[in-house]
């Protein structure tokens, strides 16, 4: 059985090459790899998996959560999602569910890299969304007062 999986963690993509009873972890950027021994995870009643050392894992909604040595890691395991693509820079999305409190641009505006485009507020905290490059504002999809969900497209640049 030979399967290769892609995992994303913090902007980095890793390739997992899983062999029969061991797997090799390939990091395309740094080139390190390590051979791993095969542990046996136990399935718990709540659907999670555990190891005798206290590690806990859960698969849910395209995410893989691992809690090990007292720390939690969250991996995205949707294979096709490409990280940091060119297109992503033009799509300004809400980083969290919240409320738009400011929309500082309108279609046709020219914006500079670093310029604030909109401000989203959630739980009393404000978060400014800035342009990642010099661009033109093509479309604006929300206005102050709108309640938006995570990853909702707010502004489209071109």
């Amino acid at each position, binding site marked *: 059985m030979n*399967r*290769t*999986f*892609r*995992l994303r*963690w*913090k902007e980095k993509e*890793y390739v*997992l090459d*899983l062999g*029969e*009873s*061991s*797997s090799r*972890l390939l990091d395309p950027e740094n080139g*390190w790899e*390590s051979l*791993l*021994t*095969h*542990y*046996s*995870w136990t*399935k718990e009643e*709540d*659907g*999670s*998996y555990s190891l005798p050392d*206290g*590690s*806990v*894992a*859960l*698969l*849910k909604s*395209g*995410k*893989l*959560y*691992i*809690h*090990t*040595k*007292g*720390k*939690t*890691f*969250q991996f995205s*395991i949707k*294979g*096709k999602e490409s990280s940091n693509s060119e297109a992503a820079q033009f799509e300004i999305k809400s*980083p*969290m*569910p*919240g409320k738009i409190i400011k929309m500082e641009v309108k279609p046709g505006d020219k914006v500079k890299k670093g310029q604030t485009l909109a401000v989203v507020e*959630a*739980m009393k*905290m404000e*978060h400014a969304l800035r342009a990642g490059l010099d661009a033109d504002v093509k479309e604006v999809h929300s206005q102050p007062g709108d309640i938006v969900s*995570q990853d909702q497209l707010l502004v489209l640049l071109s």
Partner: protein
Amino acid sequence: MIQKLLIANRGEISLRIQKTCKRLGIKTVAVYSDADKDSPFVKNADESFYLGGSEPSKSYLVIPNILKAVQATGADAVHPGYGFLSEKTEFAKALYQAKVSFLGPRPETVDLMGDKIRSRAAMEKAGVPVVPGYEGDSQEPSVLLKEAERIGFPVMIKASAGGGGKGMKRVFSKEEFLPSLESAQREAGNAFGDARVFLEKYIINPRHIEVQVFGDSSGNVIHLFERECSIQRRHQKVVEESPAPNLDPKIKQKICEVAVQAASSIGYLGAGTVEFILGEDGNFYFLEMNTRLQVEHPVTEAVTGFDLVEWQIRIAEGNTLASLLQGKEPGQTGHAIEVRLYAEDPENEFLPSIGRIELAKFPDQQNLRVDSGVVTGSEVSLYYDPMLAKIIGYGKTREEARKNLIAGLEHTVIFGPVTNVNYLRGILEHSEFVSGHTNTHFLEKHKIEWEEVGEEKEALAKTASFLVSRTVQSSSVWEAVGPKGLWGEIL
């Protein structure tokens, strides 16, 4: 005697109050909003009452709705918890008028302490030290210089119309004062169109020390020792402990005495906290008084052995402090440290992280207390404070408490929203924290390391092994979702 208590709050504090009520045989009423209808605190209460929409302004902050809940359920007392209406004079007043027992001080006390200027004046009158300053009308450089000398250097010049650091200058000596004043006035004038400034003593490396006090209806006031709450991020407490580390016993005694003096002077009733700012030189000044139960009250409970919610109830019933103490002197035994577990992302400017909690596992271990408001399946919404739980470690010594707490954090699992759990551990493991050198600049000054080199490798290794074992054993998860659906592309 209180028979049925309505808790005008939500989340962990509602559950925590219910716990004491259950022990005392008092029935509980939870109130809830749309977003909270399935929350543990609603299910755990004996009764519940729907208040309104998810936004606090449509539910937890609506006094008439809470009065309706009191009437409908026949509750004879209300605990306000912290936040929301707990320090609103109108709420305390409305309950007094409705002849319902309010588990807090008298409305006039809430009113007085909620007003920065009046409370400061009341404290000065009672002989409680306040931060020296000058807020007079004169803007004459010679007058201001004289005032600065009276206050004692270093002083802070602040713009009256102020904000955002503009027109703010720190002055360490008499020689620097006039040039700094000129520049502060100019900056203030340019920024706010108002050049007026005021002076305040600048306190070097300040610590936030607060004292738990209790007053009864006979006018007696006692303290239950101090709490150290210096470790704050943007004025939000993150770590709290009792006793305060490295605090000169003489200062400790004095600060507790002054807190009692402050509370006595206003005839304080019930639980309250007097907050002080303590300078490196050992001088301390009144900051404000919180007329409610504090988030961090568990550390005081851990070292005194008292249940502060029980005390609030007994005092509201008219019992005296002497009857609660039964001839014993309050003591401070061992050490307790609390951390606040938040759904926020330390790597992303501490942005709130919201969503469904896919898995919540809290440790059950000795000398560890967890006050949590969430369970697996809970939804962390954008409507309320993102605090998920408070975790409190106890030990005979500070080091023991710290280790117990770290062990507790290691076994705290939250999958779904990102939490600050690793960051909290980073604070507890920082050498300056270990040695008990805390001040309010701690988190700005020290780099908190919460991910060691090699951890990424470790996590990925575990992940790989998880995938391997799942693949080989063909688990139900595997079959349920199918390889393509969840595991990504198969090359």
